[in-house]
């Protein structure tokens, strides 16, 4: 008998995860700008104030450094905060709290104080929000030992991973994307968790491995369909967890296909794809039949103009072209 399913949008999946975990543990609360009375800038927290009250769904002043730090202190003293950044670009205002406190305290204190906290919110580009609202933060936070970094690409994984993140005893950077909040999907009605640290092979293929995560998955799927028409079978790996990286799943695929392209929304220099590509090189050097190619954001702050914004980011055509070039084929 098949499991009962429900159709949800990404924002509903995230809300269900928060709601279920608030039900499960009294120490879980949500704090951020406009999360309560406004029902969330992107409606992820819609209805939660009404259900849980202002003690557990807490609106803040515009003071990211203050409330992020406050929640770290609360996490050290028995609570399990979920901090919503309206945009992850605002987390830079709280950088001292995230970088010098959240990810270091457990180690620095010799294991005396853990920091079970989730920082979540939209990451990367949206629709023409320009230079200061579009940066991808995963490479920055991924560089800091102590953080777990997650970026689900669909509502199913978003719900399961957010629940796992809230239950983790470590600080988690949980990345979403504004353009994906309306993405619809059938997910189980019953409770489930998605384990942290496990990538997923979402499409099987024998010719080349494509590694990506987050919003780039939809661009990858379009590219795969276009490549299939040319008889190229692409194997697609969705990282889901950026850190800790699930290298075995990637390596297994690369050892089979012998070719690899990594797709990342963020910038190419010191990006996640640089790390993934280098680890593949370290562990699968003899299995590779060509250098690994990267498709990333170009090296500029993200411009406002629509055509320039599109040109700057990875897209179907750039991915197709990278795959062909890696396979030594002409487009």
């Amino acid at each position, binding site marked *: 008998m098949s499991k009962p399913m429900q159709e949800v949008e990404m924002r509903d999946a995230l809300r269900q995860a928060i709601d279920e975990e608030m039900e499960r543990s009294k*120490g879980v*609360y949500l704090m951020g700008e406009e999360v309560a009375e406004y029902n969330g800038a992107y409606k992820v927290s819609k209805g939660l104030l009404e259900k849980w009250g202002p*003690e557990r769904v807490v609106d*803040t*002043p515009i*003071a990211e*450094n*203050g*409330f*992020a*730090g*406050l*929640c*770290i*202190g*609360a*996490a*050290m*003293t*028995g*609570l399990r905060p979920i901090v919503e950044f309206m945009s992850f670009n605002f987390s830079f205002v709280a950088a*001292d*709290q995230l970088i*010098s*406190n959240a990810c270091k*305290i*457990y*180690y*620095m*204190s*010799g*294991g*005396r*104080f*853990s*920091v*079970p906290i989730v920082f979540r919110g939209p990451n990367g580009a949206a629709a023409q929000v320009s230079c200061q609202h579009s940066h991808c933060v995963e490479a920055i936070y991924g560089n800091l*030992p*102590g953080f*777990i970094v997650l970026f689900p690409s669909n509502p199913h994984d978003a719900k399961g991973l957010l629940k796992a993140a809230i239950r983790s*005893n*470590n600080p988690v950077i949980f990345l979403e994307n504004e353009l994906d909040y309306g993405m619809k999907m059938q997910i189980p009605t019953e409770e489930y968790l998605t384990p942290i640290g496990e990538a997923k092979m979402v499409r099987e293929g024998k010719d080349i491995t494509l590694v990506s995560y987050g919003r780039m998955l939809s661009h990858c799927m379009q590219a795969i369909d276009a490549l299939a028409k040319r008889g190229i079978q692409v194997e697609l790996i969705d990282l889901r967890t950026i850190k800790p990286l699930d290298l075995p799943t990637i390596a297994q695929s690369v050892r089979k296909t012998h070719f690899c392209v990594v797709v990342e929304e963020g910038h190419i220099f010191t990006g996640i794809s640089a790390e993934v590509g280098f680890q593949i090189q370290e562990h699968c050097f003899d299995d590779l039949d060509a250098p690994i190619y990267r498709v990333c954001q170009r090296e500029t702050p993200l411009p406002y103009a629509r055509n320039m914004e599109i040109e700057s980011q990875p897209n179907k055509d750039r991915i197709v072209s990278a795959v062909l070039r890696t396979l030594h084929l002409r487009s």
Partner: protein
Amino acid sequence: MVRKTVYGVEYDFFDAQTDKWIKRLDKNNLIDTLKRMLTIRNFEIRAESAYQQGKVGGFFHAYMGQEAIQTAAVDAIGIRDNWWITTYRCHALAYLLGAHPNEMMAELYGKITGNALGRGGSMHLYADRLLGGFGIVGGHVPIATGAAFSLKYQKQNGVALCFLGDGAVAQGAVHESLNLASLWDLPCIYVIENNRWGMGTAVDRAICVQPIAQNLSKSYDIASYTFDGMDYFSCYNGFHHVHEEVKKIGRPVLVEAVTERFRGHSISDPGLYRSKQELAEAKSRDPIFLFGEKLKAYQIITQEHIDELGKQQKKLIMASIKFAEDSPHPDPITLEEGVFAP
């Protein structure tokens, strides 16, 4: 209130009520207070010389001159139920909240028996109710505010105590914290230990208002008190009062303890920006000496007894040096362990 001018700034000091407290407090407790202040002083003097011998590395910020403040706070407020947070100048508070000199010295030596397994060093010491030892100026103030939030959320008794320096008052994190704590009625006591120097920059070159707490508190609609940080009883009476007030009103309070830093900002700072005479005058108001003199005046203790206590504490600290020297280094094989909590 006692109006007093210190370095040209007019403060309203909270009454000390020395007479009342000497009569009310147990004689043995008062002697124990002196003993603990002597331990702190001895610890830092011995640790300093270990540093000069190259046995202790990194940064080392001495609390010498300020001991009366945190000692009085812990005595007046108590450890249980409360959360304590301080800066990188954290030797005294860690000891007062229960860390043994052995584990503290071993931490300075970078040994596996150290307070934080040799990972934190001088700036990052801990105890069951001490959240740290924080190294970024002002960065711990939101953490303290969160501990107060946590107490309120969990409907627990207790308050959060946050110590910061005068230099931290220039940081945005402090102002965001005061706003949040006042806005949300959080039981947090913020204590600005004003030793007049942010490293080598005098307070009047860094902070636009003096006295700090009396002025700042108005902007955040919270109460403020100023203590003579060199006088244990001014601090004790003050913290006792503030604690009762915070428990009653469930609101934050801002305290300024006017004090002196007997050493440079850190051990590598020769303090060339202040005159020898100024420092000598400051040292004539040594809080441990003054406390001892008061106890003698009230015939609680004799000079011989004080000398004996000094010798005992020196012994305790010498034993901690031996403990640290004899302890093993952390095993490099464990280097990447403990980054994540299970």
